[in-house]
C-alpha cells in the first residue's frame, strides 16, 4: 500500500505541486495504516459471530452493539453516563492538581520536607487509587464522593512526585540568577518553580490520569449507581454483552481522546515551550 502511495509521480509537475501531492499521499497512507487493524477487527467480528453462531450471552453481534449505541445516543442515556464519569474525573483531577502541585514544589525546594515525605510517598504510590476504595466508601459513603476521592488519590501521588523531580531539575544557576535579580518567594513560585517544573508536572499528570481512569472504572463498579463503570457491571447481571462491549469501547475511546487531544498536546506544548528554557540553564 505504501509502495504505491510513495512511488514518485511520473507526470511532470511543478515542484510545490509534487510536494503537496506527496504530502497528501503520505498522510493518506498513514491514515490507512492507522485504520487497517480496526477494519480487520470489525470485519472479523461481523463475519465470525454469525458464522460460528455465537450466543449473544457470550458475545454480541456487531448489529446489536450498534443498536445499543444508537438508542443510547438518541435517548441521551449514553451521554448521561459519560458525563457522570467525566465530571468525576474532572473534579478529582482538578483537586489533585490544586493541592499536589504546591505540595510537590514545596518538597522540591526543601530537602527537609522531601526527606521526610519521600519514603511515605514511595509507600503510598503503590497504594494510590484502587486500594483506597474500601476506606473511601467507609468514610464518604457509597457515591460520587468516594469515586472522586479515588481519582484525586491516583492523580495526587503521581503529580506530587513528578513535580518534586521537576523542581529538583531546575538548574541552580537559574535559581541563583532569579534570586539575585530580587525575586521574592511568591515571584519565585510563579516565575521559576512553576514553569520550570511544568513539563515534569504534565508528564506526571498524564501518568496519574492513567491510574485514575482505571480507578474510576473500578470505583464506579463497586461504589456507585451511575457512570460507565456502573453501567458496565450492571449489564453483566443480565448477560447484556452488547452493553458491556459498547461500554468497553466507550471507555477506550474516551481515554484515547483525552490522551490524544488533551494530555499529549499539553505535554508537548509545555515541553516545547518551557523544556528548552530549562535546558539552557543546565
Amino acid at each position, binding site marked *: 500500500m505504501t509502495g504505491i502511495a510513495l512511488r514518485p509521480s511520473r507526470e511532470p509537475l511543478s515542484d510545490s505541486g509534487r*510536494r503537496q501531492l*506527496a*504530502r497528501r499521499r*503520505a498522510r493518506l497512507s498513514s491514515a490507512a495504516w492507522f485504520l487497517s487493524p480496526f477494519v480487520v477487527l470489525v470485519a472479523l467480528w461481523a463475519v465470525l459471530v454469525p458464522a460460528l453462531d455465537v450466543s449473544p450471552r457470550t458475545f454480541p453481534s456487531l448489529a446489536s452493539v450498534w443498536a445499543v449505541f444508537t438508542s443510547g445516543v438518541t435517548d441521551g442515556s449514553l451521554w448521561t453516563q459519560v458525563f457522570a464519569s467525566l465530571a468525576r474525573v474532572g473534579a478529582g483531577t482538578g483537586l489533585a492538581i490544586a493541592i499536589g502541585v504546591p505540595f510537590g514544589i514545596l518538597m522540591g525546594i526543601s530537602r527537609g520536607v522531601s526527606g521526610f515525605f519521600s519514603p511515605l510517598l514511595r509507600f503510598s504510590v503503590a497504594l494510590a487509587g484502587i486500594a483506597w476504595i474500601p476506606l473511601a466508601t467507609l468514610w464518604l459513603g457509597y457515591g460520587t464522593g468516594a469515586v472522586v476521592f479515588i481519582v484525586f488519590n491516583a492523580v495526587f501521588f503521581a503529580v506530587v512526585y513528578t513535580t518534586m523531580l521537576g523542581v529538583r531539575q531546575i538548574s541552580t544557576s537559574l535559581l541563583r540568577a532569579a534570586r539575585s535579580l530580587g525575586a521574592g518567594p511568591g515571584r519565585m513560585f510563579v516565575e521559576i518553580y512553576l514553569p520550570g517544573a511544568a513539563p515534569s508536572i504534565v508528564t506526571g499528570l498524564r501518568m496519574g490520569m492513567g491510574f485514575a481512569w482505571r480507578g474510576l472504572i473500578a470505583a464506579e463498579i463497586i461504589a456507585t449507581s451511575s457512570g460507565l463503570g456502573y453501567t458496565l457491571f450492571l449489564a453483566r447481571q443480565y448477560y447484556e454483552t452488547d452493553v458491556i462491549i459498547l461500554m468497553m469501547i466507550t471507555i477506550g475511546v474516551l481515554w484515547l481522546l483525552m490522551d490524544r487531544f488533551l494530555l499529549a498536546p499539553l505535554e508537548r506544548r509545555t515541553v516545547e515551550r518551557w523544556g528548552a528554557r530549562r535546558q539552557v540553564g543546565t
Partner: protein
Amino acid sequence: MSLLSVENLNQVYTDAYTHEEMTAVGNVSFDIPEGQFISLIGPSGCGKTTVLNIVAGFIRASGGSVMLAGKPISGPGPDRGVVFQDFALFPWKSVEANIAFGLKMRGVDKAERKRRAREVIELVGLSGFEAKYPHELSGGMRQRVGVARVLATEPTMMLMDEPFASIDAQTRRVLQQEVLRIWEQERPTVLFVTHDVDEAIFMSDRVIVLSSRPSAVQADIEIPIPRPRTWSDVYADPAFVRIRRELMAMLGVDDDEKGS
C-alpha cells in the same frame, strides 16, 4: 591500484515530513590507494558524514558508485571499521568485551579473543582498564576503546567521523599523535572526516576539500610533511603553514588565529 574508488557520488535526501528533496552530495569522486591516510574536510553540512556513511554501507547512495578493492559496497561489514564521534561503545560490555566484539562476531574462540584484545588494549594504552565499563572512562579513554575495537578486527579500511571532536584540546593532541603512531605500525587505509584544518594536515597524506552543498571535490592536496610526525615538528614545518593558509582561504576562514 586504489583500494577505494568513489565515482560521481550523489546523495539526495527527502525530508520525511515535508517531502522536500535536498541534494546533500552533488558529485564527488576520489580514489584512495592502499595504505594512505586521507582526510575529508569542508564546510559544515556539506555532506562529509554522508560520504563516510555511504562508504561504511550505512546508507545507500542515490547515485554514483563506490568500489572497495574492485567490488561495489553493499552494506556494512568488518572490512571497514568505523570510529564514531560519539564513540558508540556498548554500555553493557566491559572495555575488553567491547574490543573483542568484532572477533566474537567472526567466531574467533575465546582464548584467542582475549589474547588479541589484550594486545590491542596494550597498543592503545588502556592496560588495567580491561574490566571497566564505558561509563567509567573519560572521553579520551572511550575513544581509545573506539579505535581499539576497530583495530582488533584488522580491517582493510578505517573510517573515522570527527573522532576527536568531543574531546578536550590537550587530550585531542595526544590522541592524534597516538593514532598516528598506531597507524604507522599497522598501516590500514584511512578515511578521516574532520572540520579541523590543523588536524587534517597533521594526520594525512592527502586532504580532500569538499565545496559547500551540493558538494563536489574542490581541491585534493598532497601533504609532503615527512613521517613520523609530532605536533612540535609539524607546527614548525613551512609546508604546514603554507597548506594551512591555502585551506583556510578555501574554506573562507580568515587566517588570523594560530591553532584552535
